[in-house]
């Protein structure tokens, strides 16, 4: 009985924690971008503008939830929920600290890959249902981009799986006690990082919504809370990819014992989140075909080579 309560507590904590972090990132991103762009950023609401998040949320909740007359109504409504669902489901396999995991599955990593594939539906469906040429172009771009980058994302992780001998994330973390996987699996790390940015479709890989070309791409027609779901979904995606990088390559909660494990985890995760924001502040956007050929012609062979070499080494040392 007690165990169930603990479990429910963990679920609630993870759910609330991740959503709060994702919402908080709105502020963090705006403030950090401002610092890098010689501006002040949000500073009106509350001390240092911290309550900006609350103001943004209130605004999104109370905006008129308008559905244009020309859209495919059912699909239009379902599309934004998929991204929230699939990403929140993915969080269930992330071990934040020893024992702090919602579902300690032994196919954890595969479950994450499956969920992130589902995320592609959001963009395709939203783009299609909007009945708008810009949205359609965004949707088509998004579909191609996410499906391609998923291939190398999966492959880049296989090196980690081979070294740890498991798909279970807790075991992967425990296997890094001697050395973080970022050192032997550096190539895998870089590919996963790039694929992660592409999966969350943020700058420089924000082609499905490329503002200067497609207005707002697949979510041009969305407003109110439905847009809010895309918005928060994007930040949830960053949080997820950052925590997975932490777990898979940077030893998860492992660290010197002067800080508790969960703090170590959060420190590493936030470092990557900031890195994502910095990327957005720095890089221009490649063209669609450049992005695709970069993926298929460079990242895919590299990922395959990585699997091959790691496999050979693991085989010979055993």
């Amino acid at each position, binding site marked *: 009985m007690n165990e169930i309560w603990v479990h429910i507590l963990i679920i609630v904590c993870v759910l609330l924690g991740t959503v709060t972090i994702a919402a908080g990132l709105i502020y963090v991103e705006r403030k950090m*971008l401002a610092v*890098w*762009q*010689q*501006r002040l950023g949000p500073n009106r609401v509350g001390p240092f503008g911290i309550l900006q998040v609350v103001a943004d949320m209130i605004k999104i909740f109370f905006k008129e939830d308008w559905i244009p007359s020309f859209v495919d109504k059912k699909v239009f409504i379902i599309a934004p929920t998929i991204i929230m669902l699939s990403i929140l489901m993915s969080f269930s396999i992330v071990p934040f600290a020893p024992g702090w995991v919602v579902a300690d599955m032994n196919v954890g990593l595969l479950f994450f890959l499956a969920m992130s594939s589902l995320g592609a539906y959001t963009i395709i469906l939203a783009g299609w249902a909007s009945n708008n*040429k*810009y949205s359609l*172009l965004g949707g088509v771009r998004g579909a191609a981009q996410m499906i391609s980058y998923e291939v190398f994302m999966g492959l880049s992780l296989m090196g980690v799986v081979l070294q740890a001998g498991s798909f279970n994330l807790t075991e992967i973390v425990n296997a890094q006690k001697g050395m973080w996987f970022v050192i032997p699996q550096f190539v895998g790390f870089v590919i996963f990082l790039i694929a992660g940015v592409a999966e969350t479709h943020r*700058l*420089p890989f*924000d082609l499905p919504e*490329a*503002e*200067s*070309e*497609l*207005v707002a791409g697949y979510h041009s027609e969305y407003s109110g809370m439905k847009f809010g779901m895309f918005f928060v979904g994007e930040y949830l995606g960053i949080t997820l990819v950052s925590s997975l990088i932490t777990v898979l390559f940077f030893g998860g909660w492992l660290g010197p014992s002067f800080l508790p494990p969960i703090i170590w985890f959060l420190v590493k995760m936030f470092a990557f989140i900031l890195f994502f924001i910095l990327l*957005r*502040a*720095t*890089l*221009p*956007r*490649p*063209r*669609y*075909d*450049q992005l695709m050929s970069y993926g298929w012609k460079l990242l895919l062979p590299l990922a395959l080579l990585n699997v091959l070499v790691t496999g050979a080494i693991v085989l010979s040392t055993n």
Partner: protein
Amino acid sequence: MPGYDDIGEKIKIRFPEALLYEQPTRDEFPTFWISKDYIVPVLGFLKNEAGLQFKFLYDLTAIDEQARTNRQGQPESRFTIVYHLLSFSGNRFLRLKVGLTEEQPSIPTITTVWSSANWYEREVYDMFGVNFEGHPHLSRILMPRYWEGHPLQKQHPARATEMGQFKLPEAQMLEQQDILQFKPEEWGLSAHSKDNEDFMFLNLGPQHPGTHGILRLILQMDGESIVNIVPDIGFHHRGAEKMGERQSWHTYIPYTDRVEYLSGVLNNLPYVMAVEKMGGIDIPDRAKVIRIMLGELFRISSHLVWYGTFAQDLGMMTPVFLTFYDREKLFGIIEAICGDRMHPNWFRIGGVAQDLPEGWEELVRDFVKYLPPRLKEYDKMVMKNRIFKARTVGIGVYNTEEAIDWGVTGPGLRATGLEWDFRKKQPYSGYDQFEFEVPVAANGDCYDRAWIHVEEMRQSIRIIEQCLNNMPAGDYKSHHPLTTPADKKRTMYDIETLINHFVNVTWGPVIPANEGFCCVESSKGNNGYYLVSDGSTTSYRTRIRTPSFPHVQFVPHYSKGYTIADLMAILGSVDFVLSDIDR
């Protein structure tokens, strides 16, 4: 230069009946009246004759002559079509005029000689109702298609109050909306490809984050690649030329500021210089140097906006904030000198409005020190970025010949390898006294156009530094009676100046009947004013030749086959402003 002094003779030998009259003008451009029947062959001759090589159609416009009183021996005419040509090899301008006497005027098109004539002729049709026989698509370009009348005809009202109450019943609204709908067949575009697949027609604009203003481009697309583009302009049309006929010579200056609203005084300059040419006013050196310094500051300001927004078009977030920060600093100087920021309205007929304020040297010196390290930083961030290069190198390429055929000037022309800067070639306002280089590239792609803009900012800094170190002492205004307003201090000692001051600020100056033209190298290309005076306090005809108009006309020609993302890079690199296209 030999061979250019007897153009009239050459035309006479070749076409004995073509030349009707040689008109003397204040700007001392050779001006010939040509018979309507000969205009196309004469233009072809001037373009291709070995010793002349007038390769560039600089401008094409018209004058409605019905209210003119001082014709000064010009041939009979109801509408006069004016062609401005430029010869690069001879480095000089030539003006041809054709008089049309009918009430329903008509003249053969010259689109067969110059591609750039297409939009110019449409504009003349739109504004004057002149028919161009054989034009590929003669329709309204600036005014909406349902407009009645031709605005630059003298009988067309200039104010809304003269036009009666505005009413828009629903039926009429629906009809007008229907006219605005794009119909591909009208433009000769097919809705299906050869394999019977449907093309997509994407309406880019008038409200779109990538077009920098209310420009509408209709893209015929096959997947993501562009098959054809039809630009639809005129959303920003404010009738600047018509207002020139209503405002006095003096009160028109603020309107010029807004023609290309990023370059401020660079718009004042050609206007006041053209008026000064007509009035025969000499400018004191101090005023000249002040004009150059402010002009170069505005060139930097305009280029900074371009830099940031171009990077943003390619998906870079940060540069736009950084360059706008620099621009704010620059506006600080402009504000200290002129009192206004974007539209300083600072140049006057005969000089500048006031002397430089105390302490201006400090401000300018600080900025001259401040900007170069920042530009270096942007080089690292933008110009050397690999993704930026991948997006711009080899994209939107055209060569010098095409550029000239389509009327391209400024950075877009220099990017193709032709070293042509009016500040060097036809120095005005004392530019010949300054040391600077003209950056020239070779490939004519987006990257080269960007590189030229960046280098130009460095050269402008050099010029400003020279202004700073060598600012001449003396008057900031001429003592000529047409100077407006006359020097206030002297009015208290000198009855002549007092009278001039009184007349010029109440009526406005009366410019002798004649015509004058002046052009400058503005931030986006060549900006020129062609003014016709009928000997009164207002201009009879004000023609503003802006660089963006032909530049945007040229875009569809070299954008075919690229994707939307490339089109954004191309539009950004062209560096146009909508107000500069539509006027």
